[in-house]
C-alpha cells in the first residue's frame, strides 16, 4: 500500500502516543505503588477512594496495555510505515481501545472526583487519546477500503 504524508503523520503520532502510554504503564506494572507512578501515571490521590480498589483498577489497565494494546498498536504503526496491509488492519484494531478506555476513564474520574477542569486534564490526560483513536480508525478504514 502507498505510504503518504498522512500515513507518516498518523503512524508516527501513534508510535509517540502509544510509546508514551506503554512506557508509563510498564513503569506502573513494575512499580505499582511508587510515588512517581501515583503522581504521573494514575494522576490521582488513592486516599480519595478505597486504596485497594484504586490500585487494582489502575493495575488492570496497566497490565492489559502492556500485554495486549501496546503489542498490537506499535507493530501496526510500523506496518503502516512499511506500506503493509496488515499494518493498517492492526493499527485499526489498535485504535478501538483508545475510545473504549476514554469512556471508562471519563466515568471513573467523574464519579471518583478525579476530574480536573484544566487544559492539561482535558487535552493531555484525557482528550488526545480518543481523538487520535478516532483519527487512526477513520484513516486506516478508508485506506483499507481503497
Amino acid at each position, binding site marked *: 500500500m502507498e505510504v503518504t504524508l498522512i500515513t507518516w503523520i498518523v503512524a508516527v503520532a501513534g508510535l509517540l502516543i502509544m510509546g508514551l502510554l506503554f512506557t508509563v504503564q510498564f513503569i506502573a506494572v513494575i512499580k505499582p505503588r511508587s510515588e512517581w507512578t501515583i503522581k504521573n501515571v494514575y494522576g490521582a490521590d488513592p486516599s480519595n477512594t478505597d486504596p485497594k480498589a484504586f490500585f*487494582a483498577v489502575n493495575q488492570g489497565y496497566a497490565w492489559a496495555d502492556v500485554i495486549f494494546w501496546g503489542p498490537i498498536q506499535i507493530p501496526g504503526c510500523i506496518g503502516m510505515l512499511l506500506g503493509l496491509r496488515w499494518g493498517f488492519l492492526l493499527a485499526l484494531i489498535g485504535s478501538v481501545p483508545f475510545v473504549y478506555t476514554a469512556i471508562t476513564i471519563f*466515568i471513573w474520574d467523574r464519579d471518583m472526583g478525579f476530574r480536573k477542569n484544566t487544559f492539561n486534564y482535558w487535552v493531555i490526560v484525557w482528550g488526545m487519546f480518543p481523538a487520535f483513536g478516532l483519527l487512526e480508525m477513520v484513516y486506516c478504514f478508508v485506506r483499507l477500503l481503497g
Partner: protein
Amino acid sequence: MTTFQKQLGRFPLGIWLAYAALGVLCLAWVMQAYSLLDWEGALALGFQNESFSGDPAEQAWALESWGVAMADMVWPMPITLVALFGMTRGRFYGYVAAMMVFAIGVYFPLFFAFQRWATFPSFAVVALVLFTLPCLLGIVGLWANRGRFIG
C-alpha cells in the same frame, strides 16, 4: 491456517469461530445492558460482583463496573451489530468491524482479570475463557479467511 479454512457446511471453520465469538460478545452486552437497567437484579443473577450499597471498597468497584458497562453499550455493542450485519452480507466493513470488536473482546477481560485477580479469581478465569479465548480464535479464523471479504 488450513484448519481454519476447512469448510464446515455453509462456512469455513474460521468463520464459524468468528460468529461464535460475536455470539458470546452479544451475551456479554446483554448482561451489561441488563446491569445498567437493574444493577441489584444483575448482582443477584451473578452478572456483576459488587453492590452500590456495600462498603466503600465495594462501592468503588461497583462504580468502576458501571462505567465499563456503559462503555460497552456506547462503543463495542454498536460495532458488534455492524460486524454481524456486515459479515452476513460478506462485506469488508463487517470483517473490519468484527476484528475491531474482537480487540475489545480480548482487552476487557484482560484488564478485568488483572483488576479482580485478588478478589474474584474465579470470575477472572471465566472472563478470560469465555471472552478472550473465543475472540482470539475469531481473529485467527477471520484472518485465515480474509479472502472472502477482501476482493
